[in-house]
């Protein structure tokens, strides 16, 4: 036996970029996050070769979970070909050799910035959401240590008050994306800046969702089959964006979350925000036999 046979050959970086100690910490924090759904777990959050705020939290989770057989999909604002999604996908491939896919049904791991795909995710899939601000209480309490205590006490009164004030002032809840939601009846979390359209997809979902904020160094999770309930008053129901009746001008798909494209004549056209779903709709329309998964929304409505 030689010394060389006991060690691995030198490599400029570890598999999946992060070293073993960073991955171990992330695995531990992910397990904790799954055990206490919606509760923010602080983690060291290593620097990665990408700027903070550009998906470094999601990236660290993906780098920890990735293996050479894992099929990875990366989307940004619903689009696979967005420049930053392309950059993250290229980096993941470079450091892991894992195959990339654009197809939601084919993906084992989906790293996403601010959208959940329209096709229903399965138990064997993991969704990693990039999170800019993990603290739903930030708007009522910018101090992280006080906010942490408020979560400990389940002290969400100011959150409710803020929603109430919006209704009084504007006649409705004015929260756009990042709608604060109660997870498993205990912790209020931000679902990350996904549109309100996507929040019901997390409720009792079959898949595991891991939310990771790299800059703010917090990780939290929604395990499969967990309640995720947007904060609403009994007499003011939760409302998603009024996109149920819109039709995609490119694919003809109807009843999904749309991108609004301003037109020269002052009007707007709409295209389906889940870019790969749009591609599938076009290919199906053109007569190709491709598989499109069951969607969460049917005819623009989320079945209760």
């Amino acid at each position: 036996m030689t010394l060389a046979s006991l060690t691995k050959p030198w490599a400029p970086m570890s598999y999946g970029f992060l070293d073993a100690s960073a991955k171990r910490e992330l695995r531990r924090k992910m397990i904790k996050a799954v055990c206490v759904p919606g509760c923010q777990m602080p983690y060291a959050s290593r620097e990665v070769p990408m700027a903070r705020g550009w998906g470094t939290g999601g990236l660290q989770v993906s780098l920890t979970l990735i293996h050479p057989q894992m099929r990875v999909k990366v989307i940004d604002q619903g689009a696979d070909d967005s420049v930053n999604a392309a950059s993250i996908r290229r980096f993941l491939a470079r450091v892991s050799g894992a195959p990339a896919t654009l197809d939601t049904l084919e993906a084992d791991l989906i790293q996403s910035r601010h959208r959940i795909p329209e096709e229903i995710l399965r138990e064997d899939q993991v969704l990693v959401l990039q999170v800019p601000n993990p603290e739903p209480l930030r708007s009522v309490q910018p101090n992280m240590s006080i906010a942490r205590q408020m979560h400990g006490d389940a002290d969400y009164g100011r959150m409710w008050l803020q929603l109430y004030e919006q209704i009084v002032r504007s006649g409705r809840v004015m929260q756009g994306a990042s709608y604060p939601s109660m997870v498993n009846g205990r912790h209020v979390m931000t679902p990350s800046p996904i549109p309100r359209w996507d929040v019901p997809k997390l409720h009792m979902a079959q898949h595991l969702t891991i939310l990771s904020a790299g800059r703010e160094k917090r990780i939290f999770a929604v395990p499969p089959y967990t309640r995720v309930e947007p904060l609403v008053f009994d007499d003011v129901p939760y409302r998603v964006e009024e996109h149920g009746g819109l039709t995609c001008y490119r694919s003809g798909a109807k009843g999904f979350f749309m991108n609004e494209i301003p037109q020269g004549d002052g009007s707007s056209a709409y295209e389906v925000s889940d870019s790969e779903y749009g591609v599938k709709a076009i290919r199906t329309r053109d007569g190709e036999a491709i598989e499109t998964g069951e969607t969460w929304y049917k005819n623009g409505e989320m079945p209760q």
Partner: protein
Amino acid sequence: MAYVATRGGERAIEQSERLFREAMGPIEAARVAEIRAAMPYLIDRVMGEASLYDEDLAALALAQTGGELYEAVLLLRAWRTTQPRLGVAAAVEQGDLFTHRRISAAFKDIPGGQVLGPTLDYSHRVLETDVLAGKPFDPPKVDPADNPAPAFQPSVSAWQAANDLVDLPKPDTTKGEAIPDVTREPLLFPSKRAHTLQSLARAETGSVLALGYAAMRGYGQAHPTVNELRLAEAEVMVTHPSGTAFSAGRVKVSQAEVVSKQGETLGLGFAATFGWNEVKCIAAATLDLNAKGAPKGSATEEEFFLYHTEGVEASGFCIHFKLPHYVTFQSSLDAMRDARAKPVKEPAE
């Protein structure tokens, strides 16, 4: 739509990176060596903010990024974080620092003497424009001192403590792996003393200056007196597995002690960093001095200034606003339009 929804993102980002790099041309070892030799204070600043002491890597990072400081620091940090921690050097006491410059504003003279060392403080800030006309600027040689200043000196606060003017914190005897490491664990508040000092050591110089300056102007309670400012070299003493302690070399460090009267005693603020960076140390020590009892949410509260002087995080978040945000924006538009369509009923008088 053009920079997102087109299928060509991969090619576009590759070409944009090429465009950036092309402007700087090929990078050779000679360029890196020149940067290292010509810009020691820039190298120091980058090494301090990256918390990685390696002048060659810092020069390489500057060469690769064309001097974009935030990018250079991020490059080094991302490299640093993947390196194994092979060992922990012995703690360096102030009296063990090989001192180049040590000044005190608190006393006219101090034990060990005021040692000006290298500084531009009293220089006239005049551009040597002759250089551009082809006449090299050849600085006059330094005349060696008749009585060289002692290389090792105690801190001024040690004298003050002996005279019962200041309460020094109890020496922290934590050793080796047990020392909290802010790069390996999250920063939580109230923060561990080690985390605070490490965060200040890594903080971005400009941000520390901005918040420290705010505290100096009056948004803090304590007005700093520079008790001692020191530029020095520290011996990195490590222990070989066989048990022998040896020096792995010296690193340049700077440190500042600032004090202010707090009741009948002196409050003490401290900061130190890799490399020689006086502005950062004085500003950071001022923040440290003001942190005790600072109101929540004020610029001198520890949580506030430690979060907001983290240059890699701050700059990354700032530039992330260039990323498309149209989903979030659409979601807000939807709520706005709906609220406008249905005006709120005026409450009956």
